[in-house]
């Protein structure tokens, strides 16, 4: 009797759960940096599903896509955190409820 190996569905469901936790965090937290961390978590969950599918379809496109996602996340981290520092310097807060200058 052989035990079946971990099916792709498990990885995809885990990726969905992590993505949902990230969405809930980004919706409920008010600290802009924690919202940013939740967005990074969502990007990571998407990477899991890319790499899972590329493993089970035996292709490398998903891996390279995840590579580009990580590169864009790094660029986003640099610019986003610089924006947070600038907002804090001018408004003394990074609470996302109070930053409503661009609200129509």
């Amino acid at each position, binding site marked *: 009797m052989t035990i079946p190996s971990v099916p792709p569905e498990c990885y995809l469901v885990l990726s969905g759960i992590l993505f*949902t936790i990230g969405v809930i965090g980004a919706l409920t937290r008010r600290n802009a*940096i924690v919202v940013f961390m939740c967005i990074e978590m969502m990007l990571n969950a998407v990477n899991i599903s890319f790499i899972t599918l590329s493993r089970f379809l035996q*292709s490398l496109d998903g891996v390279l896509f995840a590579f580009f996602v990580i*590169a864009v996340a790094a*660029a986003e*981290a*640099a610019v986003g955190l610089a924006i947070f*520092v600038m907002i804090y310097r001018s408004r003394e807060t990074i609470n996302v409820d109070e930053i409503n200058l661009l609200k129509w």
Partner: protein
Amino acid sequence: MAENIVTIFQWLIFLGVAFGSIVASLLVITRKNPIHSALFLVLTFLCVSVLYLLLYQQFMFIIQIFVYAGAIVMLIVFVLMLLDLEEELRSGLKLYYSKVIGSMLAVLFLFGIIFSVVAKSPTGKVGSYTPDKVSGNVKAVGEMLFTQYLFPFEIVSVLLVAAIVGAVILSKKRT
């Protein structure tokens, strides 16, 4: 028999890492101190990187630890230390209707994902990169990156330069 033992270990590692990442990510969104959130974020990223190892992608494992757990979280912690963030600690988490409704919609979305994953197993054109071929070396990834994906690679390099320049300009003091 040896095959069975390998599979059992794979299942054990998968279950442990999946449980660990879910608990760590729940802690990220519930801790009130942002520094604690950042440290649990590192734990989440490490658990996810072990998943990449289970999927025979050592290259992504290394990149994940270097870039996410190393660079990005270090940057986040650094900025958190620079800013004085006592307000959320004092005011605590407030729940509005909009947040509850949004979270419920997100959970509904999760059920949609689970249904679509379980209902039909992933199909598509199966390529030639079997686990034996890609595990243990990054030659296949590098070859594909520098031939088929050369143009996106160049664009990403331009994007990174633009991000560095943008970050420097944004954080410079206005004169």
